[in-house]
């Protein structure tokens, strides 16, 4: 996947983005055919941005954060607050929400990234919970307490009310931008550094690289994505619940990433789609939807730890092998046997990294 990304030509990239654009814009029209509804598509894209940014941190550097609800929630509250008390300008609301969320991410990154593994996860969780409880009680005059931030006006973009389909196009545009930049980051030397951190941080440090700064930057970028998703969420819902800062929001994005496949960028977005679909469509037909969601999650962790993307990769490999063996059988004797062999080990190596 990553090797493919690095080698992608501008033309292939353009084709990829065009296909992505078509899918993102068509999603509301596809939804009703699979038991969903149009506004669910917008919700999926918003969570998709969140999961995408989360993947830049977790999938690339390997630092599992349990506190990204903080950036999502802060983004949502800030832009919601702006819409509530200033005016309906969607772009300014987004700018403010993203700026504050990113600033908080940089600060938290500095404080938490000194620790690894479980300590890092717990630190991020603790900070996020601090924000949650702050919003719930001491700051409730500003946040509306557990009633949430209510009465937010419908946002506008150059005089156009963002509601229903307009909102979806607006979110789709941001999603495209988010995908584009995430893929640029993944291809860049900076992205390579992040993967180096994941494979062996100590080794990288001993070569004289300031690993800490790279980690903080990755953390800030994923915070920016979470903040962007949070602001879009506030714009879409015209309401911000305190639950947006709760740890369950962080947990949800982890589940999405696991189901979709860490480190693949697109995988977590697909994961967001699957989780939200289950949550919003399955829950209407059975009370036991949480049980089914749990089983699906366990299936992925046990049998497909690389998520949907690994599944797709395996399917593609299997198809190719079948095709190759068929071709080989046809051309037996004519071509040397191991002609197509080098591609397989190469792919395996790239997957590990």
């Amino acid at each position: 996947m990553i090797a493919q990304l690095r080698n992608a030509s501008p033309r292939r990239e353009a084709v990829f983005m065009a296909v992505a654009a078509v899918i993102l814009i068509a999603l509301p029209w596809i939804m009703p055919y699979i038991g969903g509804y149009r506004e669910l598509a917008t919700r999926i894209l918003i969570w998709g941005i969140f999961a995408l940014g989360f993947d830049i941190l977790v999938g690339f550097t390997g630092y599992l954060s349990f506190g990204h609800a903080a950036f999502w929630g802060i983004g949502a509250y800030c832009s919601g607050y702006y819409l509530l008390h200033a005016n309906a300008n969607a772009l300014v609301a987004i700018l403010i929400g993203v700026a504050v969320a990113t600033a908080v991410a940089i600060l938290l990154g500095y404080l938490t990234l000194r620790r690894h593994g479980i300590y890092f996860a717990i630190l991020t969780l603790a900070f996020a919970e601090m924000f949650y409880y702050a919003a719930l009680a001491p700051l409730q005059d500003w946040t509306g307490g557990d009633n949430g931030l209510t009465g937010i006006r419908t946002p506008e973009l150059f005089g156009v009310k963002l509601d229903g389909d307009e909102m979806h196009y607006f979110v789709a545009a941001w999603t495209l931008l988010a995908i584009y930049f995430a893929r640029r980051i993944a291809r860049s030397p900076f992205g390579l550094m992040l993967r180096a951190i994941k494979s062996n941080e100590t080794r990288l440090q001993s070569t004289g690289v300031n690993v800490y700064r790279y980690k903080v930057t990755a953390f800030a970028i994923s915070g920016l994505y979470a903040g962007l998703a949070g602001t879009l969420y506030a714009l879409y819902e015209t309401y911000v619940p305190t639950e947006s800062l709760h740890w369950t929001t962080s947990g949800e994005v982890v589940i999405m990433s696991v189901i979709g496949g860490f480190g693949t960028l697109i995988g977590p977005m697909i994961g967001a789609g699957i989780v939200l679909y289950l949550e919003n469509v399955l829950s209407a037909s059975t009370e036991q939807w949480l049980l089914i969601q749990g089983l699906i999650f366990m299936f992925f962790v046990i049998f497909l730890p690389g998520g949907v993307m690994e599944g797709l990769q395996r399917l593609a490999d299997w198809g190719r092998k079948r095709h190759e063996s068929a071709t080989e059988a046809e051309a037996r004797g004519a071509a040397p046997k191991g002609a197509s062999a080098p591609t397989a080990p190469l792919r395996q190596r790239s997957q590990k990294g």
Partner: protein
Amino acid sequence: MSEDHTIKGGKTSAVNRRQFVRTMAGVTAGVGALSFSGSAPFHFVRGAYAQDAIGNFPVNGSTVVYGFNVPQTGSYADEGEDELRAYKLAVRHLNEGGGMLETLQPSALKGNGVLGKKVEFVTGDTQTNPDAARASARRMIERDGVIMFSGGSSSAVAIAQQYLAQEKGIIFMAGLTHSNDTTGKDRRRYGFRHFFNAYMSGQALGPILAKEYGQDRRAYHLTADYTWGHTQYESMKDSTEKQGWTTVNNIMTPLGTTDYSQFLTAVLNSDADVLVLNHYGQDMVNSLTQAVRFGMRDRQVNGKQMEVVVPLYSRLMAQGAGSENIQGIFGTTNWGPSLDDAGSQAFVKTFEAEYGQPPSQAAHTAYVQTILYSNAAETAGTFYPPEVIKALEDFECTGVGPGKTLYRGCDHQAFHDILVVRGKAPDQKKNEFDLLETVEQIPGESVKYDCDMMPGELGPYEPTA
């Protein structure tokens, strides 16, 4: 040859166009006539805007869909389940008659559906989470085309849905929500609450507490630190101080606290002789059982027996805390299955026959909300939301519970008799559901307050978004 061809071609196309225009005119006229005959009564009787599309109005087809959005997972799942039972019963009574349809006065309901359309329903899971509740409501509104939705067992969830209702132009009939804000500062034109509120609990409870425990009591409050808790504390403080009580102190306890010992120690170290627990659900179960274990109820302070008060009771909480802990403890409820008025009994009997157990107050409010909405639509003669809202506003009726029920127009709060109850001792109860005894039935009139006491804006009849 060529000329002939041209003429022929031109002729063909001209005939086609004429045919097309003629056909379309016919179709349009036909459709127009059909729609006129179908909607004429509403159109001419109900003002010029009666055909504007709002939310999921107009309702096409021979059925109308209601959405029941209740907690199916999480800590209030039991309440949600009971609400759902009541909703299903209400839908059956609307379609086939029976239950409160026979007791509601004045009533326009005929027991053949609503406005001649069969009532169907869809359900959703709020998870007692405002975000999930709104997502679920959006699905009902957009995919399932509901004309009204109802349910919930938390004020935050009710308020979140109420705002969505206003935005989408779909009426929301709130379920269990007790915070003053729901019909106070967060009241909405498209939201209606039949359940009572914290202020009414306080007003009902104050005089009875003074009568039972005396007027020179010193109260210590423990309050769940969220908006419902705050409004409950303010209301209790206000009403008990009116009776001459002193409020010693109040501690805000975080929502979801499991260990109350530090707060209870503070109570023990004070000279308070009444402990008021402004907690709901699991919070109340924990704080009350721990207070009993701390020996609160065996304590003598200022030469008086120490007492515990739980302003808002529910059957679920009483079951959770257990009879041995709640016996003799005062609180309030919106309704109780032991009430013997015709409306309550019609409901209790059909509910018990269907499910083999008595309904809870959550079930009652869910049932009544569905019936009152349907009656308003039938009275208005249309599902057009602004007309249904106007039919509900200041609607007064009997037969949905004890005494009169009034849906006040200025804040969409219903006023009706409420109950001051006391926990039964373990040997007094007849079955596992029989946990609370009614001490006094408080008339709705005596807990009424001015709309302006809790300022808020209902918003427009026609949604702006």
